[in-house]
């Protein structure tokens, strides 16, 4: 519990009484999806999804293109609406719109494939914006927090630059710091390294592994098997809008049970 308080930004008060010991022990359910359905027109992108992510758990979502992984992530942050079913974060169901939704979104950090740093603001302002405008933190405290987070992901010396002056790997690490600055309860990553040049992938994955080791609850859409093996508690395999298989990473990669997963893995492994 000590390790989660300052570093991952999880307020201590969120830990249930008699919290599990630090390490990989998992807590109570934090994100719960029940019978979630979503259509894009005639396309049934999420089909009766049931998924529970526990506090401190690192979940990797893997699956072929178009299987609905991004939609799943975006639905948890309500960047996409769902047709039916429920999604709860820390026991609270996602509100439809307005202030309550904005508040809940602030508790869910999101890291996008294309970084999406605010292009007209410095790196430091990117990170302080949320704490100041959403949390009402004063400038000095927000900058202190931002600099410590930027240091943590290894871009502390870039604070005064504009996003366009940074490499992709640096931008993505700033995006991670920006999300962490809201002290989220859970972090969502949607293919955070797939827009990066190969030599920059590891610097971002290292930051994510560190975050996982500090006890952050994470849902990560990625095809990086190294990351999954090193950091994930569980792998979820999606295909055609359904969760086809769930297993610990080692088990999933060495002995996938479903035909779809075997087929998919053989394709990404032969490359």
């Amino acid at each position, binding site marked *: 519990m000590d390790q989660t308080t300052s570093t991952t930004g999880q307020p201590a008060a969120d830990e249930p009484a008699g919290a599990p010991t630090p390490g990989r022990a998992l807590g109570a359910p934090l994100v719960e999806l029940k019978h979630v359905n979503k259509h894009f027109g005639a396309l049934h992108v999420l089909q009766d999804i049931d998924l529970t992510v526990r506090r401190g758990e690192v979940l990797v979502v893997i699956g072929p293109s178009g299987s609905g992984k991004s939609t799943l992530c975006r639905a948890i942050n309500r960047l996409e609406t769902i047709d039916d079913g429920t999604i709860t974060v820390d026991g609270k169901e996602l509100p439809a719109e307005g202030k309550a939704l*904005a508040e809940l*979104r602030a508790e*869910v950090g999101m890291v996008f494939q294309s970084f999406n740093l605010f292009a007209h603001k410095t790196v430091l302002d990117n990170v302080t914006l949320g704490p100041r405008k959403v949390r009402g933190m004063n400038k000095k405290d927000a900058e202190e927090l931002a600099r410590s987070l930027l240091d943590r992901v290894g871009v502390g010396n870039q604070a005064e630059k504009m996003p366009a002056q940074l490499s992709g790997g640096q931008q993505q690490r700033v995006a991670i710091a920006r*999300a962490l600055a809201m002290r989220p309860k859970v972090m969502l990553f949607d293919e955070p390294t797939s827009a990066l040049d190969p030599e920059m992938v590891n610097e971002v994955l290292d930051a994510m592994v560190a975050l996982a080791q500090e006890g952050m609850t994470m849902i990560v859409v990625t095809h990086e098997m190294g990351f999954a093996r090193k950091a994930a508690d569980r792998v979820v395999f999606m295909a055609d809008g359904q969760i086809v298989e769930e297993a610990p990473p080692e088990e999933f990669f060495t002995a996938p049970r479903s035909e779809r997963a075997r087929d998919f893995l053989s394709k990404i492994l032969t490359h």
Partner: protein
Amino acid sequence: MNDYLSGLSALWEQYDVLGAFWTNIQLTFWGALFALVLGTLLALMRISPIPSLQWVGTLYVNVFRNTPLTIIMTFMVMGVWTALQINLGSDFSTNFFRLAVVGLAVYHAAFVCESIRSGVNTVPIGQAEAARAIGLSFLPAARLIILPQAFRGAIAPLGNTLIALLKNSTVAAAASVSWETSSTMKTMLEFNANYRWEIFGMFAIGFVVLVIPIGLATTWLSRRLAVKR
């Protein structure tokens, strides 16, 4: 030759040409200010998540963009002032001037709105999603993230709207602002037909001199302030 020059300078003495231009500059300034405020509000409505607001914004733009300015200006005097008895100033000239400013503002607000919307289209959708993801609701996200970038992407079309507004300010004649340039020019022509080319030239050059710097400034600004992505 001497007669010619002294005639010209008498013309210059008799008519307040610079004052007329100053009137158009003032009309443009106030018109632009109010059009910018109203146009920004309309753009906000059009990009808002609330369908009824979007609808109002769209309706406004389509009505005002497609109504001739002369009709709006005439309406300001014959409708708003004469029929509805709405006074915007204590004396006639202040009243007509303000009615003309309102007419210019409501008309050009539609163009400002569309300029800003074109600027909004230069902002990648991911910027809005990232803003929402850190917990900003629509208005703060628009104010802090979308509009600042949209304005910087809209400087060129906004500059064009400003140039149009300056030239269109001569339509204030239709709102009885009889001391502005086009009215002054007409009076001068009526009584000094022998100098007609000089009079035309004087006013044309006056506008060119005002418009060119606006064009240069907006081109320079839009390059300088462009958001690097």
